[in-house]
């Protein structure tokens, strides 16, 4: 099914595909990708709604409220790799054309 995703999606997915088994915090993702909260959370919500992203609360510690954690699911990792590689190809193609000419 075709979906319209914001351009920042690939940045976000690339951040996850680096170490897909690791849980990440929202602010950590924002800091590493430069995506603001107003753009980041709608993408996270949509990924979670589609079963591509797993969410969890970190274990509570005294005096420190637990934070929300995010990790791609198996389907999410596959989706991320597809998206990242297709974007990489789309970016590389014009360069390859230049090299050939």
């Amino acid at each position, binding site marked *: *099914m*075709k*979906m*319209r*995703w914001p351009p920042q999606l690939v940045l976000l997915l690339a951040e996850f595909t680096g170490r897909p088994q690791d849980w990440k*915090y*929202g*602010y950590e993702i*924002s800091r590493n990708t430069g995506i*603001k*909260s*107003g*753009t980041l*959370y*709608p993408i996270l*919500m*949509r990924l979670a*709604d*589609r079963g591509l992203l797993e*969410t969890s609360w970190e274990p509570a510690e005294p005096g420190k*409220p*637990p*934070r*929300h954690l995010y990790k791609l699911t198996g389907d999410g990792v596959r989706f991320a790799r597809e998206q990242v590689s297709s974007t990489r190809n789309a970016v590389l193609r014009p360069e390859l054309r230049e090299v050939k000419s």
Partner: protein
Amino acid sequence: MTPIRKLAVMISNAAVRFAPPASQDWAEAISRELPSIKSDWAALLWALGGTRVLFARRSARIASLADVRPAASALEREVRIRTVSGSIVTVVLMLAFGRFFFMTPTPMQRAGCVLMVVAALFLLVQVVAWRSASIPKNIDLPTHARRFRIELERQRDFFSGPWLWSRLILMLPGYVLLCVGGAEALPATLYQQTILLAIYVAALIIAIPRSLGMARKYARQIAELDTAYRESQNSGVAGN
């Protein structure tokens, strides 16, 4: 804590408090990141961005057929709240003007009360007639999308065209008679009655763009739904 940081926390807490139930977890998630943000301004921007997200989520965007079920649930909830609150308000209005009918000394004000009760009754009938049509959860996605589209059209029509204008037009004459009758019975209250009438007319005028905005919102969702449906047909995927 600096004032900017306090403001960020305040905004974030308000977002958690007012977030719709489906977004509560997300509101908490955005809020819990604040202590990890070192810069106060960054924390404020984070809170503002997060709040915007939660408010935008109230009117769900339909990017694909997968969005239909959550969007339909959100619409059902929204319409249910409107039906309940609208019914309460109109019944209270009918009781208030009905009671005032027996208290007011002038025939003009009595006529105003009758018209206001009729207008409130008309409003009640509309609110109840446009109550949410529940969509069964176990139907397949394309059927769900079609039912959702019909419901969106119904709700769009509630906020535009003849139904909107008939509501507004019917709400006006009764109140005008009440105010004119009041000023006639007690000329000393002319100024207050004029102010009351002006406030009432202003409220009706404000209701026009608000209603048309709601109609536009539903029309946008219909257009998004149509696009998503077409895309799903093109890609040959329209599963459950």
